């Protein structure tokens, strides 16, 4: 018997509220621009702003083709008018920044400075790292850039904010999210609560199947090919080999572009959805390559207050079409404050998901650190690593293992791509079985990745007024796997045996072998979950 719950889905595109299908998209052969009301399905080869991100080992000096009015962005600290010899052009500050840059670690992507006001020559600066065009070859490959205390606004950061603000002025959102009161709940972790009555659609609840993490893509249901073209901000594509990141106002997009679209029911400012290869109609599952695209997105924005999140089916994803969410919140997410205990160093390999061969001794530069999140209501893992590719591989493979085990899970990319949180969850299962207390259900919060991270969007004013850290804790505790279940999952995903709260404790019972671990996992979750 399949498990279902009734849920009202969040409206992410106005198309979902529209009564009928819009008219067919005009043929885009010689007219490359798609009509704003046309569906995204016709977007191939049409004209779209495009952000190309560098993903190669040795980026060259970029050429910005169109946005020329962006002022040069020196190091944040040199913004005072008193710190340069030449105040007008900030040339003095450039000197100061170059001096600082020369001292920085070599393993960082670097781009040439961009002169303000002048033409398209030269690149642009990121994270206050100025360099001459021939800075020592940095192993980019998505290596983590030092995010620093307060990073300088990157080009993608500015472009994303600008386009989102423009859409807001055009009235493309269902409500003004900046009018929704928000506060930090008193307590150590600082859970963030928001009163948002508009986010939840007034449509009747429909039935969602929650016990299948992998479900086939259904073209009849809403998906992002049906969203309106005007809700698309830009395409987000890997740059050519050796090229550095750049932004073009109007480029011909590919046959299957990855696009960034607005969420018309935003959780907070700048809420967008990254849809990799949107026309390929990939279901809502993680894989190493799509995870890498999301990590690159976080890295390119370079703002620690923008996180990227993912919900699997059964973990309160509302649409079975691959998408990641991202928005700005100028506060740490409570989960980012939680301490971690190192678990294992994993080298991503070609081994099949769940294989015990996965775990290898701490090897070289490519090994990723997986830690256990401690002192936090939802048990999970934190993945930190030397390069985006390695992290994406580990997270993607772990997700595939959870898909195989039919375990709903959520993922959060924080700190500009240098920390990834991964949580398996059980709330929907508990809800379907009637195990969630009534008062929690009344609050009406579906614990997806943002709630698990600590950002609670509440529907009712009384919940918002009286929200406490204890209430948040109670809700999230119902989401979490138990200790035994998590340990079993660890064994399966990371091949870690005998790991409890801390690998240094050594005081937790050990599981022996993968088969035993998998069996224990199934037993712990309850066999009935697997039945159809």
């Amino acid at each position: 018997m399949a498990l279902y719950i009734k849920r009202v889905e969040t409206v992410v595109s106005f198309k979902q509220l529209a009564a009928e299908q819009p008219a067919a998209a005009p043929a885009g052969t010689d007219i490359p621009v798609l009509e704003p009301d046309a569906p995204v399905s016709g977007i191939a080869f049409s004209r779209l702003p495009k952000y190309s991100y560098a993903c190669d080992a040795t980026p060259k000096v970029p050429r910005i083709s169109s946005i020329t009015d962006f002022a040069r962005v020196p190091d944040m600290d040199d913004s005072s008018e008193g710190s340069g010899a030449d105040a007008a052009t900030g040339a003095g500050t450039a000197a100061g920044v170059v001096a600082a840059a020369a001292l920085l670690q070599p393993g960082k992507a670097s781009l040439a400075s961009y002169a303000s006001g002048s033409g398209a020559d030269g690149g642009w600066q990121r994270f206050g790292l100025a360099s001459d065009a021939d800075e020592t070859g940095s192993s980019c490959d998505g290596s983590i850039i030092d995010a620093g205390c307060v990073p300088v606004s990157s080009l993608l950061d500015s472009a994303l904010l600008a386009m989102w603000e423009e859409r807001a002025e055009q009235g493309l959102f269902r409500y003004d999210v900046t009018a929704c009161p928000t506060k930090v709940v008193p307590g150590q972790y600082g859970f963030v609560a928001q009163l948002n009555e508009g986010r939840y659609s007034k449509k009747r609840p429909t039935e969602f199947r929650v016990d299948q993490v992998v479900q086939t893509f259904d073209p009849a249901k809403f998906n992002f090919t049906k969203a309106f073209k005007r809700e698309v901000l830009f395409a987000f594509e890997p740059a050519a080999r050796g090229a550095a990141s750049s932004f073009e106002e109007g480029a011909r997009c590919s046959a299957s572009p990855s696009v960034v679209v607005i969420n018309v029911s935003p959780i907070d400012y700048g809420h967008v959805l990254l849809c990799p290869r949107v026309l390929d109609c990939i279901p809502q599952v993680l894989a190493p390559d799509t995870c890498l695209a999301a990590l690159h997105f976080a890295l390119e924005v370079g703002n620690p207050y923008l996180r990227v999140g993912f919900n699997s089916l059964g973990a309160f994803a509302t649409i079975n079409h691959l998408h990641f969410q991202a928005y700005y919140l100028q506060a740490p997410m409570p989960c980012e404050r939680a301490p971690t205990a190192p678990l294992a160093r994993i080298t991503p390999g070609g081994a099949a998901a769940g294989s015990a061969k996965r775990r290898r001794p701490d090897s070289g530069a490519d090994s990723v650190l997986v830690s256990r999140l401690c002192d936090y209501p939802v048990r999970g893992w934190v993945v930190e690593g030397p390069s985006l590719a390695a992290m994406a591989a580990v997270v993607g493979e772990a997700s595939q293992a959870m898909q195989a085990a039919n375990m709903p899970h959520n993922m959060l990319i924080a700190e500009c791509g240098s920390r990834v949180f991964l949580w398996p969850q059980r709330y929907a299962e508990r809800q379907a079985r009637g195990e969630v207390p009534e008062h929690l259900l009344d609050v009406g919060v579906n614990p997806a990745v943002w709630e698990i991270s600590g950002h609670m969007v509440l529907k009712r004013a009384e919940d918002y007024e009286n929200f406490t850290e204890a209430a948040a804790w109670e809700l999230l505790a119902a989401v979490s796997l138990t200790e035994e279940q998590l340990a079993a999952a660890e064994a399966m995903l990371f091949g870690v045996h005998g790991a409890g709260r801390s690998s240094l404790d050594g005081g937790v019972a050990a599981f022996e072998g993968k088969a035993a671990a998998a069996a224990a996992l199934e037993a712990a979750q309850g066999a009935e979950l697997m039945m159809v």
Partner: protein
Amino acid sequence: MPIVFASSKFYEMTGYSPDEVLNNNCRFLQGPETERRKVMEIRDAIREDRCCQVCLLNYRKDGSKFLNQFFLSPIKDDQGIVTHYVGIQTDVSKAADMLQTPGALQEQQAAVAFGQAAGCRMCDVLMQQQDVAAQLHQQQQQQQAATQQPQEQQQPAGGAAAAPPQQQQVLSEDEDVVQLEVQHACAIHDAVQQCHPHAQCVLPSSLLQPLMRIQQAFVLADPRLPDCPIIHASPQFLRLTEYSREEVVGRNCRFLQGPATNPEHVQQLRTALTADPPQAVTVTLLNYSKSGRPFWNALHVAPMRDAEGKLEYFIGIQLDVSEAALQEENGPAAADGMPAAPGKVHLSTRMAHYSVTGAVRVACRGLSGQAGGLRRSMDCAGLPRRGYSRSLSIDGGSAAAAAAGGGGSVDGGSRRTSSGSGLLPVVGTSGAGATELPGRRQHSAPGVNGVGAV
């Protein structure tokens, strides 16, 4: 937040020289293995204007690592405004090695051990550094009070390195006050680079930090204060208009208008900003710099809300589009010899306007006068959290009005808006909380005509 003073021990510990350190951010000590969560804690402590203590891995100039027990504390002036942050670094690598615990716990245990042992000493050092910081601040204020020239705040020609030696000279007499310099390095970061002549115009760090990141000309104006004065102006704005900060902060933006400014443009601004709710508006109008030079200003003004959703500020973003105007050759030249305003706003101009608007929206979302917005209510180490100081000199009923960036009458100067200038009280009357603004532009709802309804 640049470093304005560093003890000699700091240079020893990190291997950098004063030229490299002063007027740079301490960020350069971080590296690939520095734990991100610790960095976040420091960042958040600054955002919340409180102290913090973390033990994290830092890198010297030559790339070698050391374990740094880092203590950060804000220094406030007599008005309770944070002016500096003091950072104290202690190299605990050797002691940590001696503890012989596996890697990850080393940091925590070292932190505990040294926190306890050095606790009282930290306080001593802190007190002394506070004296140093206070003297530094005083000295800066004296410098600023001494002359009235607009360039007084800029370092003398010769680059960033010139001024710090001055400061160091003054402080060298006081260095013997810092007895524990031998054991502890310290660096003093300037939290408030700019001198704010008006107490009510000082902004909390959580807003000031993001604002300092924005490399464009813009101002923030406070509609809740009388005549909607400017409370923050970016360095690029000051450069564009040739005014100094003291001449700008606390005044309404209408001083940018001049004889040939078209009143219709001003009226467009007024209409949008005095609407209920205030609307964002983009207008290109003629403004004048301090020296009387006219320029075409593509101005975008938008209302900003705080964490409670109430109107908090207006932001005005200026772009000098005079060159574009010259190129476009739109019709006959105006009386001052400049061609008419550029016909269209280019995409990149719009992007420039909107990116600043968006960035400041995110920052303002974290603010709230009473509740502290997105800052936690708990204090660290018992230090009182600095509240956002805002002058409450609003006379009941008479509201702050006028736009940022040129609204208002040319002959203005009256606080109470008269019918002649046509400015109506905006939200914020009697300070009893702004009118709840339901939204910006018309937002589509299902069934309502407008975008989205099919």
